[in-house]
């Protein structure tokens, strides 16, 4: 049970990568149970819900974890409690609530039967942490209506006495919950080889050995057969319009002003079309089957990207190839 060599994995090229951040900028509806908890935070109050077995669950959950019964009986609990479990984060990340070393802790609040999980701040001193220690909530100065209204817990026998300021009285029913993830995306072996050619002003498609289809751009395999596209086939920067659409509405984040033409283009020598822009054309005159040629950026601006080609424009006559 081992891999055979001789596959595309052996064709190593320079790794091309691009950093990007993916944001999920969602607003979430809280529902009545979570909403009740978040609403109480602005008054400096912690609230739990009574489970089917009578234990007080904090923070409250909508359904009992054992019986699945809908839970509705809210119970006030203290903003002080006891640490029942913890770990020490020596190197916090930008996603963490505190920027200096801190503990995550499970804190059983006075009056609660289950713990709440949050950060505990001992000013970076791990030796102050112990299971069983007493802590209290450190409240945010200005309530936002989400879990971060609790900044963290801190060592303390009794409540801090501080209560968050707030400028809203209506119950919390929605909360902002943006999440950002950082990536360093790598292009893939086949795509990297393709982009190296684009960098040189060439459209070089790829096909599987013995395969019928030349792919522009290649993504690693001939999808029809599942075989790596190890053979390169240079294509012309002249193409045929396979299909097109005229965009009349602005696309968020797109610098191009509508109306503009987006087309499926089949480069001479390729068997599969790619998507690019058409310009220097009367939009009403664009038609399927139209012959077009690439309008390249100046060579000194070329990079590993398809927008080395600014757009495509009608080919006046078949001998008029090139245009870089």
């Amino acid at each position, binding site marked *: *049970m081992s891999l055979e060599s001789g596959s595309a994995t052996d064709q190593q090229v320079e790794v091309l990568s691009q950093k990007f951040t993916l944001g999920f900028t969602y607003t979430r509806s809280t529902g009545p149970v979570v909403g009740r908890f978040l609403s109480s935070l602005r008054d400096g109050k912690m609230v739990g819900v009574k489970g089917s077995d009578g234990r007080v669950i904090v923070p409250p959950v909508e359904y009992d974890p054992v019986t699945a019964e809908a839970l509705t009986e809210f119970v006030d609990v203290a903003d002080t409690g006891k640490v029942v479990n913890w770990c*020490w984060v020596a190197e916090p990340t930008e*996603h*963490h609530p505190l920027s200096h070393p801190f503990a995550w802790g499970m804190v059983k609040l006075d009056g609660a039967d*289950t713990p709440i999980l949050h950060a505990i701040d001992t000013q970076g001193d791990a030796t102050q942490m112990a299971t069983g220690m007493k802590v209290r909530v450190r409240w945010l100065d200005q309530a936002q209506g989400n879990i971060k209204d609790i900044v963290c817990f801190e060592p303390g026998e009794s409540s801090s006495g501080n209560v968050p300021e707030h400028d809203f009285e209506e119950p919390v029913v929605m909360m902002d919950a943006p999440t950002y993830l950082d990536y360093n995306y790598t292009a893939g072996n086949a*795509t990297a080889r393709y982009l190296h050619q684009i960098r040189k002003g060439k459209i070089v498609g790829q096909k599987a050995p013995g395969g019928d289809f030349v792919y522009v751009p290649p993504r690693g395999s001939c999808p*029809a057969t*599942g*075989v790596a596209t190890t053979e390169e086939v240079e294509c012309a920067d002249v193409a045929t319009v396979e299909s097109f659409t005229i965009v009349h509405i602005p696309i968020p984040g797109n610098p191009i002003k509508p109306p503009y033409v987006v087309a499926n283009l089949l480069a001479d020598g390729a068997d599969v079309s790619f998507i690019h822009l058409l310009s220097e054309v009367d939009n009403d005159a664009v038609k399927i089957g139209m012959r077009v040629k690439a309008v390249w950026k100046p060579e000194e601006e070329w990079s590993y990207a398809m927008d080395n080609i600014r757009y495509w424009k009608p080919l006046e006559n078949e001998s008029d190839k090139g245009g870089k």
Partner: protein
Amino acid sequence: MQDVAIVSFVQSDCVRHAGAQNEVELIMPVVQAALKEAGLISVQDVDFTCSGSCDYQQGAAFAFVAGVDALGAVPPIKESHVEMDAAWALYESWLKIQMGQAESALIYGFGKSSPGQLSNVLSLQLDPYYLAPLGVDTISLAAMQARSLLESGEVSEVDLAEVVVNSRANAKNNPHAQLSGDFTVDQLLAEPETVSPLRKHDCCPISDGAAAMIICTVEKAKAMGKPYAVIKGIDHRIETHHVTLRDLRRSPSVEIAAKKAGVHDAPVDVAEIYAPFSHQEIIVKRALGLDDSVAINPSGGVLAGHLFMASGLSRVGEVAKRIIAGEYKRGVAHATSGPCLQQNMITVLEGM
């Protein structure tokens, strides 16, 4: 339930960075090798295909769809995907065979974790109101699980280190392992704690790679004339999503799944446990009711290499491989998902 045969299993090396290879390029070699090992020519020769992966690893919606490009799905094939470890794709495929809708299936799992930050990606599986906004990460949750075990006095730091010593030693015989070698408990305990009480070696490495498996009815396996292992039982159980409401020292879901899958019906001599953190191997072993006569993680387990989204399938494959080779007679494969062993799947395997 009808017996289902595993006729081939292939996985890639576990590597921290797969370099320029994209997911399709990671999948193609293992799928082709798994087909070849089963004596099949192409994906057209199986009735059903199912994959497991996580779009958040690539950071693109519907990223898993591109994986199909690795298969050769022309003419169109019957295909499905689970946003889970490929062990659950095995489960779906097993169900297809039970339902009589397929006699054979290709299962594959893949993950390229290196472009992103796996620990942060996994934060997104937590409660979106109370935990995810705080950036609670999986390593920290596992660390608290470890502390609850350590402070109960049931388990010591030495026990945790022994798990790692055994993993690294066993992994010396696994050509796909990322971490292997000879270590002593004292050596490991001399290392600093990273997220206390866990040390770096208590946490699995992060690996890029893929794995593939072919299963079929026993009749079909006999017709193929290939050696095979048999799935005698399979079961999946889930605990509450709220991690603070669980007794993290126990795994009731493993206990139930083990019983339902028939682990205790006959002696077990090998087990592959999907434990991304050393203490979790102890929890799962205990919940499975296995004693010290059972060989645990002869491959080294995921502490030696962690193909996120394929490691569960690999546990099944590693047990099957050893049963086919005649090294063991009856084995258990464990797969997990979610924080602190929230979900667990148990597969019981025997020889032909």
